[in-house]
């Protein structure tokens, strides 16, 4: 376990070097242990694929007893200590979140492109995309945007050479080896295969996003009629 400074107010805790389930479990365990009780001077913990980044205020650290010339070592020591003796926690049971998706048509203009690339029928693409279970490795890029692992190999499809100027919020897309959901109307180069009526980013709620790192995601195909019925609006 390596701890590396990221500027004068953050430390990166490295828990693996490859993206896989085992690294993910280590990241989740470390994140939960560090978040279970406040650490002095720490303002924020941010998990990613292989790391947990610890943001801190050096001034607050000194007020909390850190030696002025050894702040990072002092905080690094507290982190290691916490991970060695994690507080008693309930065993984390991954949450499975079902995401309804209306595939194809105006909701998924690139479904045919993905099907052609995979040499499958659009129906078969939908079947395989909904059959898989995906792991939310991390949330980033945009508010609530999940980096999902577990896209079946045959559905891997290169990104568009020229990104769309705007992608409708809720679009479910495939970019290279990844699949994800666009939370906001943003430019985007991924292949749009469908759209969910659920809101991914909902700033008025707690938490403000639908998905969290560690969740499992299952997509479920719905009809345009069901989409209109289920559409969530701010």
């Amino acid at each position: 376990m390596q701890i590396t400074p990221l500027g004068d107010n953050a430390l990166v805790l490295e828990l693996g070097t490859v993206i896989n389930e085992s690294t993910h479990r280590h990241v989740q365990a470390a994140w939960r242990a560090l978040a279970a009780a406040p650490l002095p001077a720490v303002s924020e913990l941010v998990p990613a694929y292989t790391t947990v980044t610890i943001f801190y205020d050096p001034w607050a650290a000194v007020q909390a007893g850190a030696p002025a010339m050894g702040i990072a070592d002092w905080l690094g020591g507290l982190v290691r200590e916490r991970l060695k003796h994690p507080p008693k926690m309930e065993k984390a049971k991954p949450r499975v979140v079902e995401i309804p998706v209306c595939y194809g048509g105006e909701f998924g203009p690139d479904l045919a492109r993905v099907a052609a690339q995979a040499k499958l029928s659009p129906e078969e693409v939908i079947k395989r995309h909904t059959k898989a279970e995906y792991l939310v490795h991390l949330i980033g890029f945009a508010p609530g945007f999940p980096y999902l692992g577990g896209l079946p190999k045959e559905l891997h499809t290169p990104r568009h050479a020229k990104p769309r100027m705007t992608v409708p919020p809720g679009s479910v897309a495939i970019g290279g080896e990844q699949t994800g959901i666009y939370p906001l109307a943003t430019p985007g180069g991924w292949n749009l295969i469908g759209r969910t009526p659920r809101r991914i980013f909902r700033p008025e709620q707690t938490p403000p996003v639908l998905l969290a790192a560690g969740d499992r995601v299952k997509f479920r195909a719905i009809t345009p009629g069901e989409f209109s019925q289920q559409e969530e609006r701010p």
Partner: protein
Amino acid sequence: MMRVSKPGLLTTVQDLGRPGYQQYGIVVGGALDSFAARAVNLCVGNDDNAALLEMAQTGPDLVFEQDVLVAWGGADFDATVSGQPLPRDRAVRIAAGEVVSFGLARAGLRAWLAIAGGIDVPLVMGSRTTYRRAGIGGHQGRPLVAGDVLKLFAPSPWARQILGSLQSGLKRAVTWTVRPETMGQPAKPGVVRALRGPECDWFAKEAQRAFFAAEWTATKEADRMGVRLSGPELPLLKPREMISSSVNAGVVQVPASGQPIVLLPSRQSVGGYPRLVAVLSADLGRFTQMRPGDKVRFVETTLAAAHDIYLARERDLARVRLGLARLAG
């Protein structure tokens, strides 16, 4: 109440940002130069985190409904009140109905204006910072436009006392100043101090040397998320894909094009490019003032030295805070 008669190019409500939500992909943002924002808030008796205005290149014209105490600092704007120069880096009295006009930045790019009490906009996820891309925070989640009217919180007793003494003495401004750029151990002009980043070793030795030896030029590609620099190519030792991980304000990431980007507070929460170095918090403000064509050099420092610099600035600000508190009461 504060009425916006001209909005300026990009005037937004900011505080010290929205930490705690990066795990949800929500950017921290906040005043791009947090130390400059804290200094002007201090001048008008506000908490460090009070909401204020950030302006860029062309500032706003503002009119207040009541007499207020304000302070501004940052870039060298052509600021006036009722046609007279508006003193900077200190508490200034503005009478009801007077027009405060920021005009153009003559040097630098961004400035911050604090009003005693702070701007009263709703807290969204614990912050009043405008998050433009998500359309939340600040004033209706967007930059100010002409005709906007913003509410203000009541000034602190300290600010009321300072305002009262300016009013009775018919004075425009106090005589003391708070100048954040002189606090702590400022870097030399044209130089910023940086720490090695987690992927520094991914770069060829010559690339690491070139990075610290070169004079870098700010490009047009610059916004609240970051500033792209132009200079020598920075090749990796061998082609290598980075696994997306956290970034931080000040991180210099190097995309495949080889031209580095210095990240500013409205950066994304994660990035997928190697993190070559990270600029010290104390020197990050330099990049918020850079215009295309401005030059900068990087000098490497140690984490212990970086913390020494960080603490020196905080100690100076704390000392000024104590001094100002003694002025009233």
